[in-house]
């Protein structure tokens, strides 16, 4: 591609973005479309649609961030969280659920009140303020079920029909195939969904929105955007005035490079973003860049999750069709009088093969009865629980004092323990899931706790006051005016919705803010 831009390492006019996923990829394209020069550093490799196969094991190996990490608390010590390392990042893996936050979730602290042990805060902006940006995000992504994209909802697969039937028998009403950034009709040069399944292994036809084949190539086509794959950011540097002025990274050949920058935007997922800021400590910023509040890496949230698998009385073939196009929303509404604040969603999720079912339905189980249920694999229906996870100061991403990665840098140490609210919500959600499947005639129903988290949030949160968080309502760091947080790290609370749509909406809004500031020479 001869038209793709190449910027010099000493070019001080470029915006450097770390990460090419929902936040970084979207922000990069939006800026490039406005004529702003962007260098995007992405730690992972660049795949093509031809590299995407219907093989969860193969694709997991291709997409996963495999660098070492340390987990503690409730987390797996070796795999505390699960994120991607590839161009497009988690937008290659994500299932496509594109849901707006509910109105009350923008002011959770005011709605839920003072919950002991939780570090709740209201967002420094309103629900109304965000709606135009959601409109634009839905149109960009081609969200089925959004009037702004003009796409109808997807048809329901067998796994959805079981959920729908059981939920409606119990009296639930907000049951449908979700708002999904998966084309229900050809849209934006991409084809309609063929009900292939394997969404989370990457969509082999590009019917699901991913920055890999939307934002990134479009940004490149402007001539204002240079993607540098396999380039791992190690440190953000600043000048004597405390302004970010470069990103030091190790390139695909293992050589350290230093890219000058006018503005730096960090979008490395809520695990790697705080890690990078903590790794960027200096004499001026001894506790890490933009961390005068001490909130960098704090308030780590991952949603209150769990799963249910039910052996139904007839065939379901749960792997056929769109994996997450099925949702029960009634329980996501915040209601007083429940034993927990916030709410949860139930979303369809297939076990992804007999091995997935055997390992996940009841981890560690074996024996005749379990083998019998595995023999019923054709009949299995499955769902995922996604609920609000309350922020807690103790839940955090810090630099591990012992373990270092292949570049010699301290790895992320991720710590998470359930708030009592999380535990009560998960218990209730598992009961609801069981009831739904039993109402549809299930035999055995297995419910279980979280998988390693794919939804990571809150570790550089927005706040009205610089004391309470890391960035303002535009993701701009309180301490460093030309440093931006462009991913789920800036979330104030987890809400019960999958985070991607909001990350994209925030990135579009941030690009508008940055470009206006640049025009006015304020950045």
């Amino acid at each position, binding site marked *: 591609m001869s038209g793709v831009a190449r910027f010099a390492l000493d070019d001080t006019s470029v915006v450097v973005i770390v990460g090419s996923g929902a936040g970084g990829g979207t922000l990069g394209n939006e800026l490039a479309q406005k004529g702003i020069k962007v260098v995007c550093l992405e730690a992972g490799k660049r795949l093509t649609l031809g590299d995407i196969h219907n093989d969860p094991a193969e694709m997991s190996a291709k997409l996963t961030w495999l660098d070492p990490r340390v987990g503690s608390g409730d987390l797996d010590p070796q795999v505390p969280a699960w994120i991607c390392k590839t161009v497009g990042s988690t937008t290659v893996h994500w299932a496509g659920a594109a849901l707006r936050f509910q109105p009350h979730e923008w002011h959770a602290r005011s709605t839920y009140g003072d919950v002991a042990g939780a570090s709740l805060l209201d967002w420094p902006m309103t629900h109304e303020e965000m709606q135009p940006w959601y409109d634009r995000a839905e149109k960009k992504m081609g969200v089925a079920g959004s009037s702004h994209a003009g796409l109808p909802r997807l048809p329901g*697969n067998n796994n959805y029909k079981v959920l729908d039937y059981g939920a409606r028998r119990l009296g639930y009403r907000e049951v449908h195939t979700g708002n999904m950034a998966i084309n229900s009709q050809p849209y934006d040069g991409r084809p309609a969904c063929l009900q292939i399944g394997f969404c989370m292994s990457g969509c082999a036809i590009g019917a699901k929105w991913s920055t890999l084949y939307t934002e990134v190539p479009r940004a490149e086509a402007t001539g204002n955007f240079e993607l540098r794959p396999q380039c791992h950011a190690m440190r953000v540097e600043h000048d004597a005035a405390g302004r970010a002025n470069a990103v030091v990274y190790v390139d695909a050949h293992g050589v350290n490079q230093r890219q000058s920058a006018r503005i730096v935007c960090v979008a490395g997922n809520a695990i790697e973003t705080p890690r990078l800021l903590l790794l960027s400590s200096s004499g001026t910023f001894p506790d890490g860049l933009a961390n005068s509040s001490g909130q960098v890496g704090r308030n780590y949230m991952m949603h209150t999750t769990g799963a249910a698998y039910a052996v139904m009385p007839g*065939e379901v073939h749960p792997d056929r069709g769109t994996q997450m196009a099925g949702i029960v929303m009634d329980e996501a509404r915040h209601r007083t009088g429940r034993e927990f604040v916030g709410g949860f969603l139930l979303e369809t999720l297939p076990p992804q093969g007999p091995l997935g079912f055997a390992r996940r339905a009841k981890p*560690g189980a074996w024996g*005749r009865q379990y083998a019998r249920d*595995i023999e019923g694999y054709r009949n299995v229906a499955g769902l995922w629980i996604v609920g609000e996870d309350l922020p807690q100061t103790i839940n955090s991403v810090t630099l591990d004092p012992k373990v270092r990665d292949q570049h010699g840098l301290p790895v992320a140490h991720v710590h998470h323990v359930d708030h009592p609210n999380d535990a009560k919500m998960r218990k209730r959600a598992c009961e609801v899931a069981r009831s739904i499947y039993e109402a549809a005639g299930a*035999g055995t129903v297995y419910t279980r706790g979280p998988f390693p988290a794919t939804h990571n949030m809150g570790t550089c949160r927005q706040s009205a006051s610089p004391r309470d968080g890391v960035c303002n309502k535009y993701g701009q760091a309180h301490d460093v005016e030309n440093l931006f947080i462009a991913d789920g790290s800036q979330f104030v609370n987890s809400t019960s919705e999958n985070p991607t749509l909001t990350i994209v909406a925030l990135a579009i809004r941030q690009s508008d803010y940055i470009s206006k500031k640049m025009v006015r020479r304020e950045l």
Partner: protein
Amino acid sequence: MPDRRRPTVLRRDILKIGGSATLLPFASVLELAGPIRRAQAGAVAVDCKALDHAQAILLLSVARTLFPHDFLPDEQYTKIVMVIDAKAAADNAVAMTVKEALAAFPNDFTAVVEAQREGYLRTLEGSPFFRLVYQETIVGLYGDATVSTLLGYEGSSVEHGGYLNRGFDDISWLPTLKPIGK
């Protein structure tokens, strides 16, 4: 219209498996699996590097007790034994773990009923030997393409045009359930 890639059912019989209400088109299972052979000492030729024949037979029985599928021939479980044997041949610590654990097994382990075998294995849960054999068995069995196909996993679909015209919404039994009267 893409062809409907459903399992070929040669015989019309639908068998109940394991006493559950699960209905499977079993003829296709038989067709793919070949003749059913139950675990019997000496029934399978095992060419091991690190383990002796008796140890291999014992491991085969352990694997089948962990995840007993009567329709699977011993050959399927033997593959798992071979993987463990290869690991033992490559790593002396693994060989010691396996051999020492097997040496402590009751002499009649392969001869007693499944409930007794299961009872003994429950006492080993959490041990390095158990974790090793459990991990290799669950991956070796359900990660195996033949077994996962037998269990109804249909694998890659993109080359067949997905399931849009091949049954993604073909569920037929749900409407027969009666709504709860209120």
